[in-house]
C-alpha cells in the first residue's frame, strides 16, 4: 500500500514538473483565462447584467473544457508510447493503475490551478455586490468535477492511440456527445420523436444536468456519484486499454 502511494506520488510529481518545464502550461493557462474572460465579459455581459453572481462565468465551462482539457490530456499516454518511455515505466515495478492515478492527479491539479487563477472574478463580484458565496463555492466545486470527468475521457483516448491529434479529436467528440445528450436545445428536438424515457435516459448520461444542479448551489450526492463513476469508469477503461495495447 505504501509502495502504491509512493509510486503514484512520484509519477504525479514528475508529470506536474513536466508541465512547467515546457511552455505548454503557460500557454494553456493564458488561453484558459483569456477565453474564460472573453465569454464572461463579452458574451455573458458580466458587468451589464448587474447581478452579483458568477453564473455567466460557469455556464461556459463545459464548452471551454471540451476543447482545452483534451489538449492537456492528449499527451498523457500518447507521448509515453511514442517515445517508448512506457517500457521504462512498466518495468520498474509500477502497475498501470498506479501510473494512471499519478498522471490523472497531476493533470487534475494543473486544471485546478488554472481554475483557481480566475479568483479575481470572485473578488470583482464581491466588490460589485453580495454574491452567495455558497453558490460560488459549489460552482467552483462543480467545475472541478466537470474538468475531472473530461480529463478521464481525454486520458482514455490518449491511451488508445499514439497519435496526439487523433486522441484530441476523439476526446472532443466524446465530450461533445456528453454535453449535447443533455443540452436543452438538443433534448427538446429529440423529444419530438423519441419517447420521453429514452430522452431522459440519455440525458442522465450527460454532464449538463449534473453540472447545472451544482451551479445552482445544490450539492446532491447523486451528482457527485455521477461524476465519480464517470471518472472511475474511464480510468478503468484506460487500464484495460493499456493492458491490451502494451500487455500491461
Amino acid at each position, binding site marked *: 500500500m505504501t509502495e502504491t502511494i*509512493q509510486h503514484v506520488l512520484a509519477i504525479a510529481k514528475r508529470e506536474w514538473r513536466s508541465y512547467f518545464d515546457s511552455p505548454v502550461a503557460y500557454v494553456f493557462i493564458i488561453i484558459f483565462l483569456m477565453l474564460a474572460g472573453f465569454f464572461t465579459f463579452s458574451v455573458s455581459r458580466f458587468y451589464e447584467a448587474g447581478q452579483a453572481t458568477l453564473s455567466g462565468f460557469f455556464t461556459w465551462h463545459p464548452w471551454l473544457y471540451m476543447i482545452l482539457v483534451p489538449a492537456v490530456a492528449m499527451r498523457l499516454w500518447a507521448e509515453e508510447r511514442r517515445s517508448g518511455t512506457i517500457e*521504462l515505466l512498466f*518495468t520498474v515495478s509500477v502497475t498501470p493503475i498506479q501510473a494512471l492515478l499519478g498522471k490523472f492527479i497531476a493533470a487534475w491539479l494543473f486544471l485546478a490551478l488554472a481554475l483557481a487563477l480566475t479568483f479575481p472574478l470572485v473578488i470583482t463580484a464581491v466588490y460589485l455586490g453580495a454574491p452567495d458565496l455558497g453558490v460560488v463555492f459549489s460552482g467552483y466545486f462543480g467545475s472541478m468535477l466537470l474538468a475531472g470527468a473530461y480529463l478521464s475521457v481525454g486520458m482514455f483516448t490518449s491511451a488508445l492511440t499514439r497519435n496526439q491529434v487523433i486522441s484530441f479529436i476523439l476526446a472532443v467528440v466524446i465530450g461533445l456527445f456528453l454535453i449535447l445528450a443533455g443540452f436543452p436545445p438538443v433534448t427538446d428536438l429529440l423529444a419530438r420523436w423519441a419517447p420521453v424515457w429514452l430522452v431522459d435516459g440519455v440525458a442522465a448520461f450527460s454532464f449538463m444536468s449534473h453540472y447545472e444542479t451544482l451551479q445552482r448551489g445544490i450539492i446532491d450526492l447523486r451528482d457527485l456519484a455521477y461524476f465519480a463513476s464517470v471518472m472511475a469508469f474511464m480510468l478503468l477503461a484506460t487500464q484495460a486499454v493499456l493492458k491490451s495495447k502494451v*500487455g500491461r
Partner: protein
Amino acid sequence: MIKVKNLVKDFGRRRAVNGVSFEVEKGTVLGFLGPNGAGKTTTIRMIAGFLPPSAGTVTVKGIDVATDPVAAQKNIGYMPENAPLYEDMTVSGFLRFIAEIRGFSGTEQKNRVDQVIERCFLQPVKNQTIDTLSKGYRQRTCFAQTLLHDPDILLLDEPTEGLDPNQKQVVRDMIREMAPEKVIMLSTHVLEEVEAICTRAIIISAGKVVADDSPAALRQRSSSYNAVELAAKGQGIAEKTGELPEVGKTEVLEAAGDTCRLRIFPKAGKNAVPALLAAAQQQGWTIEDLKVDEGRLDDVFRQITTTEDTKEAE
C-alpha cells in the same frame, strides 16, 4: 537465476518467439544474438515483465514473471532498445525519479544517484536536459537507471548500439566489472562484442534458439577453424601438403617461383600443424610465415542463421 521455458509470443498470426528455453546462472554474461527481427527484443521484453508470453514461462529468482511482474522486476534492471528516456528531464532529475520509484528517499536516494552518475561517467552532463545529450550519454543514462537498486539481473537490449568505439569500450568495461556478482543478458548483433565480454552466447533465428555455447566453442564450428595459412619456400609444397592424412583441402593463395602462400584446411577435428612442420623439415622447406585461424564467429553466425532463414522460407 533466469529460467525461460518454451517461451512463445504471437503478434496476431505472426509468431515472433517460437519455443525458446534456456537457464542462466550467476556470473554469466550472456550474449543474445540473432539477425534483425529474430525475436531478441520480444524475448527480453517478456523476461522483463513488459510483455506477457503467449505460452511458456519465465521465472526470475523463482518468481514467475507473468503472474507477479512487480516482484520479479525488483530483481531486474532493464534497459530497453533505443534507450527511451523522458526528454524534458535532466539526467540527475531522471535518475532521482527512478530511484524514488525504486523506493529510495532522502540521503539514500541521493547517494545512490551520485554513485551511478559517477560509475557511468555522467558527471559532465548531470544537470543537462536529456534531449540535449549525445547518443553515448543517452545510452549511459539509461544504463545508469538499471543500476540504482543494484539488481541481480541486468537485461540490456543493444546497449552499445550507435556508440563510437571509445564509448563502446566504456560500456563494455562497466559490464565486465559487474559481471561476477550478476547475471547480465545483453542482446546485440555486434559479434566482436560477444567475443569481448560474453561467457556464453545464444543465437536465435526466426524465434528459435539455434545455438547455445561459449563464444570459443562457437568459433570452433567455423569452417576456417584451425585452418593454416602457410608461406614457404621449397619444391612441390602444395602437392605434398595435400597428401598429408590430416589435411582436407588446400588453396593456393599466391605462387611465385618456388615460394608460395597456401591456406590449408585440416580434416574435421584434426590439427594439421605438427604434420606440416614435420613435412617441412623432411623436405627442407623454409617456412616464412605460419598462422593458425581461430575460427570466426561471424562465419558461424552466418552459417547458422542463413540456413535457418532458408528453412523458414520453404
